[in-house]
């Protein structure tokens, strides 16, 4: 087995008195799409943020391409080739689409941002149409596209995506999932995808983990997890399907 790009080893973390993650271990190999599914409040977003150093893990170890990054400040971790499209998208509301994209490259790479911007436009042509519009005036789907485009500006080795489908129309969700698939197939980008939309996420991903109350309860290839009855009951039964 080749060395993992991301290795999370028995990490516990949380905010204040709340322990959101309990000895979580997972790994992501280079070129993989790995998804982490779980209900609201299971600790999915906390895990992505803990990988980025906010909050710092209370115990356990996180390493990136073999290097220990546990306890490092967020900006230092991101400068090692990690990018995140976070929960709630966090578009800079008073910057234009173009400025938002440029911020994605600003502190993380010295390369000219031009080619990366073209790549973002190729994935999401809508961004080019909205180039001079302020981030705060975009629709939810456009903001999500911008959040992913911004994360790609630094040419990351590892892309962390937090619920990119949340609150979006099915057609937009399909567009975004297609884009993730294309990025992975064409550029070999490694993706860790957090989703409540278990059905689509498991179809897209090579492997998946199930997080329940801060603990990993299941793992396996995406399609295999999708076939498990307990997954079908817990995550595919109701509203999402």
């Amino acid at each position, binding site marked *: 087995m080749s060395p993992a790009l991301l290795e999370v080893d028995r990490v516990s973390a949380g905010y204040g008195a709340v322990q959101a993650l309990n000895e979580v271990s997972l790994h992501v190999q280079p070129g993989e799409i790995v998804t982490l599914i779980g209900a609201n409040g299971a600790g999915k977003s906390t895990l992505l943020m803990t990988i*980025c150093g*906010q909050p710092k893990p209370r115990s356990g170890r996180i390493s990136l391409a073999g290097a220990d990054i546990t306890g490092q*400040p*967020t*900006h230092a971790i*991101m*400068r090692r080739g990690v*990018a*995140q499209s*976070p929960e*709630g998208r*966090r578009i*800079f*509301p*008073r*910057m234009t689409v173009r*400025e938002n994209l*440029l*911020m*994605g490259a*600003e*502190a*993380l790479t010295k390369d000219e941002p031009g080619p990366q911007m073209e790549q973002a436009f190729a994935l999401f042509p809508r961004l080019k149409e909205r180039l001079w519009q302020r981030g*705060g*005036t*975009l629709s*939810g789907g456009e*903001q999500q596209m911008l959040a992913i485009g*911004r994360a790609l500006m*630094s040419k990351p080795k590892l892309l962390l995506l937090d619920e990119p489908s949340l609150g979006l129309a099915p057609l937009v969700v399909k567009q975004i999932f297609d884009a993730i698939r294309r990025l992975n197939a064409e550029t070999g980008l490694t993706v860790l995808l957090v989703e409540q939309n278990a059905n689509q996420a498991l179809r897209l991903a090579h492997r998946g983990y199930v997080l329940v109350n801060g603990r990993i309860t299941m793992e396996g290839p995406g399609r295999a997890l999708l076939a498990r009855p307990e997954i079908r009951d817990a995550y595919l039964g109701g509203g999402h399907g």
Partner: protein
Amino acid sequence: MAYALQQLINGISLGMIYGLIAVGYTMVYGIIGMINFAHGDVFMIGAFIALITVLLLQLGGMMDGPAAILLVLLVSMAFTALYGWSVERVAYRPLRGSFRLAPLISAIGISIVLQNYVQVSQGARVKPIGTLVPGGVEVMRDGPFVVQFSYIQMLIIAVTLGVLAVFTILVTRTPLGRAMRACEQDSKMASLLGIDTDRTISLTFVIGAALAAVAGTLYMIRYGVIDFYIGFLAGVKAFTAAVLGGIGSLPGAVLGGLLIGLIETFWSAYFSAQYKDVAAFSILVVTLIFLPTGLLGRQEVEKV
């Protein structure tokens, strides 16, 4: 007419000083959402460092010409920036992430500490200094009344405009400025984009303190008298200016400063000098009732 023109000149040059201080309030508020109540005292520190530098230069017999003034300005900016940096480091950074009032209380504490520190180390008496920039230009004459545009007023306006121009370029065109704007809009996201937010906040305090030092130096040269307490009223006025212009807005801070300077000057000229502060603060109250976000504050609703 001539009298009004004179008041206009006086008001603008006073307003520029308030504007310079107000920028420091508004920048810190924009980036960490707190009112730095010690900022007025940082201005006072700037005035004292300028005074000490002047005295040292006079001892050496080198205190004349524009080069000397420039040197005083730069020394004051450098040392005051160091104070601004230290205050953030010691009193605000350890409290980041605690409840919202904590840094505010800490700021009031720092304000008292700085005042007492200067009072003890420099003495409580007012410090007079001779006229450093004498003379001026006669703009117009109306009978016995002569409208004077003094060199010191020209200096205040020119230096302020120059400093604000450099500052505007810094905020809009440089990586540091973009990092500051990103932190101001969403500091968590800024850190996810590789921006060192602690460093950006530190530099915000450094820049704010340097601008306050410019204000302090100009104030010291203009009025020729300073004491450890000048930071209080100037600070409150500049804070008022920042709120009037719309707290968080940089052009608003300068505009607010100019308005407060003009209101105060015209009120003293036509009504009563004793009530000039009442006038300035009354306008603030009226503005806040009808324009709660200030003149240039943000009002749009943002999608999240």
